C-alpha cells in the first residue's frame, strides 16, 4: 500500500511517500524558518499562507522522485493536530480534496505519533515495547510504548518543552532565530567547567521535568557576567555549554529512570532536540554501559517532516476513511488515540 503523507502543523511543509512493503520512497520539505526569522518567531497567518503555496509542488516533487503517479496512491495521511489551527487546515483541506478526487481514503494523523514512530524510518528499526523520549519544540515527554496507540505517559515537563527552553535561552543570549541549533553549535566550543547551572527535579523520584527555571538561571548568570562588561563570545559559548549540559543531564537521568521503572530495554528518541549531538552522545554512552538499545530517527527527520506522517498513516491504515468533512485538533492528547486492532486471521 502506498501512502502519501502531508505535514503542515507549524512552520514546515513536508510531503512524503511511504510504501508498506518498501518503506520510505521519497520525501520533500520546505522550511519557513527564514520567513519567520524576521519576526522573531512563527507568525501563524504567514505560516498558513506559505503552506498553501507549497503542498502541491512538494507533492509533485515526491511523486517524481519515487517515479510514481497519483493513480498509484492508496491513501493520504495528513497531520490533523496538534499544531496551529489555520496551518493544519491547509494540509487537511488539500489532503481531503485530493483523496476525494482520487476516490481513495484519508488518515488523520497525530503529529506527535508521527514523531514518536519516526525512528522506524531508520535501520535498524525498534521493536515494541520501548521507552520513548519525545523532545520537540512543543513537547517533552517520556512514554512507555507497547504498540501503536498504546502510549503510557511516564513523565513530562511541567512547564517549558526542552526545545522551547533551547529557543528561549538562545533568544536571551542574542543568538539568531531559530535558537536551538545555534545554541547547541556554540555550546560545543564552550568550556564545561566554567559555569554550572541547576538541574531542576533531577533528584526527585518521579519522572516529570521542568525547564523554565533553567532559563531564569541563565538570565541571572548573564546579568552577573554583564557587570564585568558586555558578554564576549567565549563567555557566551561557556554559558551555552552550561545550559546544554544541564538539559542533557536532566534528559539522560530521567530517561534512565524511565527505563528502570518500566523494566524496558529499548529507548527511542524523537523530536527536534533529538538532533542534538551532545544528547545523542550522552544517551549512547549510557546505553552501551547498561546494554540498552537506543534508536533515533535519521538526523534529517528529527524535526517536522512528511515522512513521519506518511509512516504513521501507513501504520494506521485500518483507521482510514473516505475523504469527507474534516476537523483539525490544535490540542490533542496523544493518550486519547485508539490502539491498533490485532490483525484479523484470514477465515
Amino acid at each position: 500500500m502506498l501512502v502519501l503523507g502531508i505535514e503542515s502543523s507549524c512552520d514546515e511543509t513536508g510531503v512524503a511517500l511511504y510504501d508498506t512493503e518498501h518503506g520510505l520512497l521519497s520525501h520533500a520539505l520546505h522550511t519557513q524558518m527564514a520567513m519567520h526569522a524576521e519576526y522573531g518567531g512563527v507568525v501563524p497567518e504567514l505560516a498558513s499562507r506559505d503552506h498553501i503555496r507549497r503542498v502541491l509542488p512538494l507533492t509533485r516533487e515526491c511523486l517524481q522522485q519515487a517515479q510514481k503517479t497519483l493513480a498509484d496512491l492508496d491513501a493520504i495521511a495528513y497531520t490533523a493536530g496538534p499544531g496551529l489551527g489555520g496551518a493544519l487546515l491547509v494540509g487537511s483541506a488539500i489532503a481531503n480534496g485530493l483523496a476525494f478526487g482520487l476516490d481513495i481514503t484519508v488518515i488523520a494523523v497525530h503529529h506527535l505519533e508521527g514523531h514518536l514512530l519516526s525512528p522506524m524510518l531508520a535501520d535498524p528499526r525498534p521493536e515494541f515495547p520501548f521507552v520513548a523520549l519525545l523532545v520537540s519544540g512543543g513537547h517533552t515527554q517520556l512514554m512507555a510504548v507497547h504498540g501503536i496507540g498504546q502510549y503510557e505517559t511516564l513523565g513530562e515537563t511541567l512547564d517549558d518543552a526542552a526545545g522551547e527552553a533551547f529557543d528561549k535561552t538562545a533568544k536571551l543570549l542574542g543568538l539568531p532565530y531559530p535558537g536551538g541549533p545555534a545554541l547547541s553549535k556554540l555550546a560545543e566550543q564552550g568550556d564545561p567547567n566554567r559555569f554550572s547551572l541547576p538541574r531542576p527535579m533531577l533528584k526527585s523520584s518521579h519522572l516529570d521535568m521542568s525547564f523554565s527555571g533553567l532559563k531564569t538561571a541563565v538570565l541571572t548568570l548573564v546579568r552577573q557576567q554583564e557587570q564585568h562588561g558586555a558578554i564576549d563570545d567565549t563567555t557566551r559559548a561557556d554559558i551555552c555549554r552550561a545550559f546544554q549540559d544541564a538539559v542533557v543531564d536532566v534528559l539522560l537521568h530521567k530517561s534512565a529512570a524511565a527505563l528502570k521503572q518500566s523494566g524496558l530495554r529499548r529507548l527511542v528518541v524523537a523530536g527536534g532536540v533529538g538532533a542534538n549531538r551532545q544528547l545523542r552522545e550522552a544517551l549512547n554512552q549510557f546505553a552501551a554501559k547498561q546494554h540498552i538499545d537506543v534508536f533515533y530517527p535519521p538526523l534529517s527527520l528529527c524535526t517536522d517532516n512528511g515522512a513521519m506522517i506518511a509512516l504513521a498513516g501507513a501504520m494506521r491504515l485500518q483507521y482510514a476513511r473516505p475523504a469527507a468533512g474534516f476537523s483539525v485538533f490544535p490540542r490533542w492528547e496523544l493518550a486519547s488515540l485508539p490502539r491498533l486492532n490485532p490483525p484479523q486471521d484470514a477465515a
Partner: protein
Amino acid sequence: MNCIVLDTATEWVALGVYAHGKLWQADAHIKQGHAEYTLPQLRQLLEQAKLSLAEIEVIVVGNGPGAFTGLRIGCGLAQGLAFAHDLPLMPVSTLAAVAASTDADYPLVAMDARMGEVYFAAYQADAWQQPIVSPQLITPAQLPALPAQAWTGCGTAWSAYPEPLQHALQDHQLTISPVAVPTSAGLLRLALSGQFSTVSAEQLSLLYLRDKVALKTHERR
C-alpha cells in the same frame, strides 16, 4: 461546460455543480463549519446531477478577499480536487462573486474585513474584469471617489458599518441590496461570462489584501 463552483471566504459556503445546463446548489450559512460541510455536500450534488468528477471540466473558486482561514479551506479543497484530475482552476474574486450575485447594473461591494475596515470594489455588471474600483482594503469613512451612477450596495459591510458607508455616499444614488455574500449562481455567472482565465492547481494564488499581519522584530522597538 460542466463545472464545480465554490467560495468559502465568508460565513457561507457557496457550492454548486453545474451540469448539462442546470445548477445544483448547496449554498449554506455555516459560520465556521466550512471544512465539515463542503465535501459531503459536493458528493451529494454530484450524485444529484449524475455526474462524476471525471466529467467536470473546470473548478471555479473564489480566491478572496475574505476571512483568511475559510478562504484557504475552499482554495485548498479546490487545489486537491483539481490536482487529482489535472483540472484547470478558474479563480474569481470573491467581491466580483458578491456583485454577480445581485441583479444590479452597478454593484458596489463592501465586505466587513473586521478591525474597522472593509474590502471594497465597484463594478459595472458584466464587465467583471474591468472593475470601476478594483478590490481594496479601506476604512468605511475613506471610500475612493466614484463616478455618478445608480449604485447598489451589496456585501456584509452595509449592515456592519451602515452609517459611515452611507455617509460617504450621501451624494450618490444608492440602494442597498439584501445580497451580502457570494452565491453559487453568482459564481456561475462569472464563469459563464467567459471573462476569467484558468490556471493549474499549483498556480492558484489567493487575494488577501491585508498583507501586514505581524510586526517584524525591528518594527516592534
